[in-house]
Every structure is written in C-alpha cells, then in structure tokens.
C-alpha cells in the first residue's frame, strides 16, 4: 500500500470530523431555522406560516417575560458572582494559613451538578430559611423567587470565577505592590490603580464566561421552581424546553430559539469587542 502524504492524512482526519460536526451542530441548526417558519406542534403534519412566529414572538407576553427574567437574572448573577469571587480571590491570595486547603473547599461547588444542588437549596429555601426568619419561603413569592435562583447559581459559579481571579492575581509581581507602597498606594487605592488594571484580562474572561452560562440557565430552574410562581422565573431555555417539547409549540419555540441564538452571538461579539478595546488601552 502506498504511504499517505501528510496532506492526505490531514484531509482523512478533518473531513470525517467536519461531517460529524455538521451532522450534530449545523444540520439541527438549519432544521431549527426551517421549523421556525412552520406551525409544527412536534407531531403530525404542519404548514408554512412565513414569519408569523417571529411576529408573534414580539407580542407574546410570556416570551417577553422570560427574556426580562433571563436578563435580569444573568446581569445580577454576573455582578454578584464577580464581586464576591474577586473579594474571595484577594483573600485567598493573601498572607493566610491553610491556603491550598481553603482553595480546595471553596472550589467544591464547581464540581457538583446543578440539578442536585438545586434540590438541596430548595429544601433550605423552603424549610430552613423560613424557620430562621419567620417569613414564608422565598420560592413561593414572585418578587423573591428569582433571587433564590441567583443565589444558587452564584454559589456554584463563584467557585470557578474565584480560581480564575486567583490565577490572575498570581501574575501580578510582588514588586508592583512594593513600588506602589512607596508611592503611597495601599489598600483600596492599590487595588484600584495597581491590581485591577493588571488583572483586566481575567476580569474579561470571567465576565464573558459567567454571563454566557447564566443566560442559558436551566438546571437550577428545573430543580427549584419549574418556572414558577406565576411564570416569574421562566428562563428562555426553560421556556423553549417546556413549551417546545411538551407544549405543542415546536415551531413557535424554534423561532424563539433562533432569536435567542442571535442574542447570544450579539452579546458575545459585543463583550469580546468591548473587553478587547479596554485591554488595548492599557
């Protein structure tokens, strides 16, 4: 048998990989786009409805509500996660004892599955917290249920975010602080003017990663509220799953998913451009 050339080998590797990728990523994406122009229920026959699904999306109160909830949730959770993680990273990078043991403990939430964590916190919100505060469960109130989801999602997300900030802080050489201290930069001033500018790349990574994860929130909602009470915690992913798979809105929710996809791409591109520019300025 003739020996394959380097290029032939590469082609024989790449083409099947591309085929697999096309089959389970691009093909369903195209099919989703096609379904979004139909009134398909998920079974039986269906008709073309043109752009009616898209027109309906913008007037559908439930869809609008899920976008509002998802963005409110993602924004608050991203800010909370990053603030707490940054403080925690500064602490864990300080002159403390048992450093690696502490880091090990704070990382645990990252490895646990969102669904089971959601169930455990569900019990805390339903039975433990009301017993402590004397109030009712956060989960049964439309004004507070979303905050419960923020807390659980942040609890898990802080673990990884903190570790990334720590690896960022470790890139800041000690003599930067020493030089700063001579110029009178200590405490908050030292953080704002010396530390933070130097770890901006890590800040960008964390903002992009946590925002993207939170926008796709699903497991915690499945475990804690199933979208309730009164659909106040229905995330976009949950709505697409719930109504698309079981609610006979396959076509309509496909249109929702297409818009969601465009929104995710737009936000990612915006974030990358924005943080990219900030880094250049430095």
């Amino acid at each position, binding site marked *: 048998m003739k020996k394959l050339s380097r290029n032939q080998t590469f082609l024989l590797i790449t083409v099947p990989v591309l085929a697999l990728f096309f*089959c389970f990523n691009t093909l369903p*994406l195209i099919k*989703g786009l096609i379904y979004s122009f139909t009134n398909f229920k998920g079974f039986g026959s269906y008709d073309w409805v043109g752009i009616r699904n898209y027109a309906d999306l913008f007037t559908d109160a439930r869809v609008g509500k899920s976008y509002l909830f998802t963005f409110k949730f993602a924004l608050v959770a991203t800010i909370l996660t990053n603030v707490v993680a940054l403080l925690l990273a500064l602490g864990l990078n300080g002159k403390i004892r048992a450093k690696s043991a502490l880091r090990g403990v704070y990382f645990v939430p990252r490895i646990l599955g969102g669904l089971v964590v959601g169930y*455990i916190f569900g019990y805390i919100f339903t*039975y433990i917290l009301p017993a402590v505060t004397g109030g009712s469960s956060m989960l049964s109130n439309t004004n507070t249920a979303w905050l419960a989801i923020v807390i659980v999602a942040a*609890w898990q997300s802080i673990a990884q975010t903190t570790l990334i900030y720590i690896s960022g802080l470790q890139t800041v050489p000690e003599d930067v602080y020493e030089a700063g201290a001579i110029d009178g930069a200590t405490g908050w001033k030292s953080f704002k003017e010396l530390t933070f500018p130097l770890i901006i790349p890590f800040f960008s990574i964390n903002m992009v990663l946590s925002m993207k994860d939170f926008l796709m929130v699903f497991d915690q909602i499945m475990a804690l509220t199933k979208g309730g009470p009164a659909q106040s915690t229905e995330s976009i992913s949950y709505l697409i799953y719930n109504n698309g798979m079981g609610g006979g809105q396959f076509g309509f929710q496909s249109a929702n998913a297409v818009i969601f996809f465009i929104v995710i791409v737009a936000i990612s591109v915006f974030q990358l451009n924005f943080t990219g520019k900030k880094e250049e300025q430095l």
Partner: protein
Amino acid sequence: MKQKNKVAATTNWPLTILLIAGCLTVIFPLYMAIVIAFKKPTEMTNDIAGALSLPKSWSLENFAEAMRVTDFWHSLGYSVMITVVTVVLAILLHSLAGYAIGRSMAKNKFYKFSYLYIVSGMFVPFAILMMPLVKQTAQMGVDNWFGVILCYLVFYMPMNVMLYTGYLKNIPIALEEAAFVDGATTWQTYWKVIFPIMGPMHATVAVLTALGTWNDVMTPLVIMSGTGANTLPLAQLTFQTQFGTNYNLAFASYLLALLPILIFYLVCQKQIINGVVNGAVK
C-alpha cells in the same frame, strides 16, 4: 528556623479566620444533606433542630432504599459509561482534529475555514439544537446513550479543538521532522511524538469534558427519556415525584448522586482545579 518565624509573624490571622468561617457557605448545604440522609422520617420534627441535628443512629437504610427506588447501579453505569467513552473519544478525536487543523491552518484556507467553522459552534446554545436533535436522533435510531455521546463529542469539539490547536503552537515542528527523517508517516509521528507531548492538554480536556458530561441534565433528558435508561442526575429528576415528602430518602439519593464526583475530586483535586483554570484562561 528564622524563615519560619518570619512567615508566622506575617500571617494575617483575622483574614484566615474569616475565610475559614466563609467555608460554612460551602459546607452547610452538604452537612445538611448528610444529616438528613441518615435520619428516619420520624426524627424530622417541624423545627430546624429536626433537620439539622445529628441523627440518633447512623443507619444506611435510606441509602439502600434510594438505590432501589432510583435504580442506582444502572444509572451509575450509564453515567460512567457515557462520561468515560465521551472523554476517551474526545481526547482521541479532538486532539487529532486539533493537530490536522492546527498544523495546516496557517497556509491552507480550507483548514483555516474548518477551524473558524468548528470554533464558532461555541456560540450555538443548546436550546436551538435541542428540538431538532430529538427528531434527528430518533430518525437515526440513536435516541439513546450512544446518541448522547455523539452529541457531546460535537458540543465539546469547539472548545477542545481550540485548546489543542493553541497548545500545538508551542510544540516545535522540528520534533516531527526528526521522525520523518526516520521514515515514519504523519500518522505514526502523531501517535509516537505529538500525542504524548500534548499530555497536559489531554488532562485539561479530560477534566472539562468529564465535569460537563457527568453533571449534564439537559442532553440526556431530551434524548434518552423514554428509553427507561437514566444517568445519575436524570434519575434524580425522574424519581423526584416518587420521593414525595420523604426528604430523608430524597437526600440519600442526592448524596449518592454527588458521591462519585466528590470522591474523584478528593483523589485528583489538583488536576481538576488546574484543568478548569487552564481551560478558561487559555
């Protein structure tokens, strides 16, 4: 000795104590899960003490019952099989793809395109693929654990190919040329020279892919439901209604679901933390 004294003198004790106290936020939910899982329903009085006090006797009854109700060993088997096969195939396939594409994309437009095509898949939310994938896997006869693995191989491809091509940039091509001179083909060179050198990246890919697949609920939920087979997280969702208000049974089941990954974390904590951080930062 002098060195040691110096370290002791500069330890920030208040910070250390604060951080140890902060660990409670991580430990409390797990502590609660453990004590409830070992208790009998009769021990659960309607106050906090009923939930949080230590059980009178540490019996494994709830665990045995939970294993029976959730068909634990089967679910564990599916989880282990799906995760292990996905990780092994991901390392083999994605590293090969990363190699073929990474070594060619600088001078060949087809590979440059392939790279951008695959990596752009990172922006595609599962929500848009979900509904078409359910239909597609059913039509192809892979609406089972095997289909789930195929999906994972595609979902993790963008990240893994990006990690591998990035890592490959630091491996000098001269290493391969030495093997060529000895008459080895590109294929042989890859397995003998490049694959072993990429060891650290294999670890990162393995950790990220394993954590993602092990904890994932959504993919098995939509693709495997109806086959009667469950992964560990999916089993918690499926049997949630059967737990009813027997929280002791439910928590025993949650703990069983968390236990394998916690043990894994205790054994390779360092590799897991490094893997997660490397994956995000690179």
